[in-house]
C-alpha cells in the first residue's frame, strides 16, 4: 500500500519546508504577533481595571454628593422652619407693639376727651350759671310786671338755651 509507506523524498522535503517555515515565522512573525496579543490582553486588562476603579470612584463621589444634597436639604428645611418661626415671632411682636401703642394713643385720647368734656362741662356750667343769673336778673326785673310774662320769658330763655346746646 503506497499510502502507508512514507516516501523518503516527501519526508525530506516536508522536513525542509517545515523547518524553513518554522525558522522564518520564529524569526519574523511569532514574536511580534505574540507580543501584540499579550500586549493587547494586558491593555484590555488594564483598561477593565481602570474602568472598574473609575466606576468605584464615581459611585463613591455620587454617594458623597447624595449625602451633601441630603444635608443641604435638611439644612434648607431647618432654615425655612427657623425663618417661619422668626416671621411668626416678628409679626406677634409687631402686633403686640402696635396694640400697646394703640392702647397708649387711645388712653391719651380718652384722657384728653375726658379733659375736654370736663372743660366743656365747666364752661357750660359757668355759662349756664351766668345765663341763669342773667335770666334770674331778668325774671326778677320782670317779676315786678307780669307773672305770665315771667313764665314766657323763662320758657323762651330755656328754648334759647336748648337751641344753643
Amino acid at each position, binding site marked *: 500500500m*503506497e*499510502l*502507508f*509507506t*512514507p*516516501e*523518503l*523524498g*516527501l*519526508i*525530506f*522535503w*516536508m*522536513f525542509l*519546508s*517545515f523547518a*524553513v*517555515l*518554522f525558522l*522564518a*515565522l*520564529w524569526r*519574523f*512573525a*511569532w*514574536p*511580534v*504577533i*505574540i*507580543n*501584540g*496579543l499579550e*500586549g*493587547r*490582553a494586558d*491593555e484590555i486588562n488594564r483598561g477593565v481595571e481602570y474602568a472598574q476603579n473609575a466606576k468605584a470612584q464615581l459611585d463613591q463621589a455620587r454617594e458623597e454628593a447624595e449625602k451633601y444634597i441630603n444635608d443641604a436639604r435638611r439644612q434648607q428645611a431647618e432654615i425655612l422652619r427657623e425663618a417661619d418661626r422668626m416671621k411668626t415671632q416678628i409679626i406677634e411682636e409687631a402686633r403686640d407693639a402696635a396694640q400697646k401703642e394703640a392702647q397708649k394713643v387711645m388712653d391719651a385720647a380718652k384722657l384728653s376727651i375726658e379733659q375736654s368734656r370736663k372743660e366743656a362741662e365747666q364752661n357750660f356750667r359757668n355759662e349756664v350759671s351766668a345765663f341763669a343769673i342773667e335770666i334770674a336778673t331778668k325774671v326778677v326785673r320782670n317779676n315786678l310786671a307780669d307773672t305770665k310774662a315771667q313764665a314766657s320769658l323763662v320758657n323762651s330763655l330755656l328754648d334759647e338755651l336748648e337751641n344753643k346746646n
Partner: protein
Amino acid sequence: MFTPQRAFASSESHDSGEVNPKEIIFHHLGDGYGWEVPFSHEHRIPLPVIVRDNEGEWHCFSSARVTGGDTYEGFHISHGEEYSGKIVGVDAQGNIYRPLDFSITKNVLALFITVVLVFLCCMSVARWHKRNGHKAPRKGVGAIEVVIEFIYDGVIKAILQDKARRFAPYLLTVFMFILFMNLLGLIVIFPGGANLTGNIAVTLVLAVCTFLVTNLFGTKHYWKDILWPDVPLWLKCPLPIMPVIEIFGMFTKPAALTVRLFANMMGGHMIVMVLTILIFIFAAMGPAVTATSTVISVLFQLFMLLIDVLVSFIQAYVFTMLSTIFISLAQENPHQEGEHHGAE
C-alpha cells in the same frame, strides 16, 4: 464542484471503459509527478523530477518527459505491481530498481505553496501588529489573528501557562501549517487538491518534530518518571517492566499523532471520491438511475466537503492540542505533579 469532471477524466484514461474505483481513488489520494489540470487528463502541469541512480549520479528533468509513458535517461514511471506510479530505473542487468527520489512532486509543490501561504498570512498579522500597535485587525487579517489567538490563548497558554511563550512558535507553526494543508487539500483545482495531510510522510514528520520537542526539552523529573517511576520496587528492579512500558509510551504518542491526522484526512477525501465514483458505477444502469444517483451523490459530496472543512479545523486543533499536552507533560516539575495528568 470540479470533482465529478476530474473523476470522469481519470476514468476516461482507462481504455477498457471499465470503472476501477480502487485505482481511481488511490491515484487521487496518492502523490504524482505532474499536477492534474481540470477537464483534461492528458495535460498535466510538469514538475521537476530529481533522482539519483544506483551509480550515484543525479538526474534532473521535467516530468513531462516521462508522464506519457516514455523513458527518459533510463527512467520511467512504473505501472507494474511494485513501485506503481513511481519513477523507476533499469540497471545494467535489466532489473527494475527504485532510485533515490527527491522529485518536486505534486505533494512537494503543494507543501511549498502551503509554506508560502502560511508565511504570507502570518506576516500580514505581524505587519499589522508592527504598524498598529495593540489595535485589533479586521477582515482577512482579523480572521487569521482570531485563529492564532484562539490557539494561543485557548490551547497553548491554557495548558503550558508560564512556559507558553517558549513553545508557542513551534505549536502555532504546526497548527497553521496543518490547517492550511487540510484546507488546500479540499480545493480540487490547482493550488489545492494535493492530499497532503492524508499522506503518512507529512504527518510522520510533524509527529517526529513534536516527539523531538517533547523529549529534547523534557525536564529531569520527566526523565525520572520514565526511567525510575514512582511504583513499587519489584515493578522496576530486577525486570524494568514500568520503564519499558514508559519508553514504549514515549513512541506511541507520536505514532498516535501520525495516524490520527493521516487517517482522518484520508478518510474524508476517500468518502468524497467514493461518492463521486458512485455516479460512474450507476451510469451503466440507464439514464434514470444515473440522474438520481448524480443528484444524491452531489448533495452528499457537498455535505461531506462541508464536514471536511470542519474536520480540517478540528484535526489541526487536535494535533496542536495533543502536541501541547505531550510537551506540557514533559515540562512537569515535582511540585506541579498531578496537575496535567487528567488532560491526557
